[in-house]
């Protein structure tokens, strides 16, 4: 990677860290929300659904601004978290939060669709054998939706790798802290002669995201075949 300067390497490392954390931390919640939306009928279901989709609909800058207002140093949630020693403002954790939130709708949708494709009759069969809802979920539903979870997670990862607008608006563009690859690309594009450097970074991030996507296709297909037992 002699091709990349230390600052750029730093940005790549940070982007990977941010995206991986964003994906892993939001995954359990994503599965839970997807399941709730797919299988439960409860008041406020549509509200939850709308909320989940919000980051997809809003211009990223607006999402970033709203994050700044709520999770910023003076924001209500920001202050609340700070009491537990968790600071996200202007930290890489904040970048992960922004990326995670921006990727969340994609993750939830992918998982939800795969849950809806599971035949409830199989879950019923599990229940007749004595398995509680939780156990049926863990042993029947979860394995069957594994391909969907993988797809959703990788999609979220790819989206997180590319996230820019909300991140820079929320946690700024601080090298080593919050300067992810896309932010670095932005910085280069703002100055004369910065295009080659920007292009280099774009190629890097495309390679990373593509690798993840193709890998997920491959893994997803293998898992799907294992799951279908063919």
């Amino acid at each position, binding site marked *: 990677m002699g091709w990349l300067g230390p600052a750029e390497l730093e940005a790549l490392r940070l982007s990977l860290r941010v995206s991986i954390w964003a994906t892993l931390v939001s995954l359990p919640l994503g599965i839970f929300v997807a399941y709730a939306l797919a299988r439960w009928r409860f008041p406020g279901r549509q509200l939850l659904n709308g909320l989940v989709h919000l980051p997809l609909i809003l211009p990223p800058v607006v999402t970033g601004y709203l994050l700044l207002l709520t999770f910023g140093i003076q924001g209500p949630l920001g202050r609340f978290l700070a009491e537990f020693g968790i600071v996200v403002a202007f930290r890489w954790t904040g970048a992960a939060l922004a990326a995670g939130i921006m990727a969340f709708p994609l993750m939830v949708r992918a998982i939800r669709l795969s849950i809806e494709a599971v035949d409830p009759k199989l879950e019923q069969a*599990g229940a007749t054998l004595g398995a*509680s809802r939780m156990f049926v979920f863990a042993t*029947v539903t979860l394995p069957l939706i594994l391909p969907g979870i993988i797809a959703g997670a990788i999609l979220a990862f790819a989206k997180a790798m590319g996230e820019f607008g909300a991140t820079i608006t929320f946690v700024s563009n601080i090298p080593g802290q919050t300067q992810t690859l896309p932010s670095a690309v932005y910085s280069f594009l703002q100055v004369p002669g910065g295009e080659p450097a920007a292009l280099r970074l774009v190629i890097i991030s495309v390679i990373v995201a593509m690798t993840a996507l193709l890998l997920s296709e491959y893994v997803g297909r293998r898992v799907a075949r294992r799951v*279908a*037992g063919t």
Partner: protein
Amino acid sequence: MSLSVRLQQQLPGIALDLEFEAPPGVTVLFGRSGAGKTTVINAVAGLLRPQAGRVAVDDWVLFDTDQGSWLPTHRRRLGYIFQEGRLFPHLSVRQNLAYGRWFAPRGAQRESQDRVVEMLGIGHLLNRRPAMLSGGEKQRVAIGRALLAAPRLILADEPLAALDEARKAEILPYFERLRDEVSVPILYVTHSAAEVARLATSVVALQDGKVLRHGPASDVLADPSVAPAGVRAVGAVLQVQVAQHHADGLTELRAGDARLFLPRIPHQVGEHLRIRIPAQEVILSNKPPEGLSALNILSGTVEAVRAGEGPGAIVSVKTPAGVVLARVTRRSVEALGLELGQPCHAVIKTVALAPQDVGGRVAT
């Protein structure tokens, strides 16, 4: 343990409204396609919440809409064999079989897995996935999975329909053993008259969501008005004991003071059994028959003659072996003068008593 069922449910096609008591043993639900059999079983299993009703095993209430009580499916300790298998596609056959064991209470009486596997002939399939099984293989695994869950209530929806005769003949005794040894109530849907006759302790005949007839198997089956099972299923059940195995491949049974021959059966000398003698296989004679190929001739007196709507009649003959039913034509009833108290001889072909009609062990 006995199961009591009361249900009311409005469906697009029919209105379900029924009530019956299933005594210990096998209660066969039968009725034409669409009569509501699967719906009843699903309600008992808790997969369907009926508009009104109550289901209980003795005084363990599974649900009661009057009291608003409802036990979720997984607490009902079921073994449900579905009409369409429903194996878990992502688990191997072995894992499918093991699924229910997780939840069986520690002390629960439980089948040995090896034994069930052997009986079902699925030993060579254990490492396969369901997608790689044939239709019948799937159903066999589904049966095994339900049985291994140590259920307190077995629900079986046409469990043997996809199986070949030979396999059926192997699995039927197993259900019989369950019926006779374990006190688990079994609710069993089938369209096969042979299975009804062989397994049923009691029979619930459904028609358009209502109970058409309900009672001990022998009563319901002997009733020609209950069309669906077919008159061919009518038969008498005799209590017998294995007396001797003969060298020419026949087994001799002691039935009361009489003897019966039938093709060799695998039971040991001295064992008590029940055998079904299909009414249809019995010929009556008013003279002691001679020179017939039939080896079993029981002499007795006519106890009852029931004429159906068709050309046939069911004649009960009291013999030293017990009461034997014979299905003959009304024309023969007149020709032979078969009236109450009249002495007569029942001729039963040896080969008509195939091993299929031999019931399992009887608690002595």
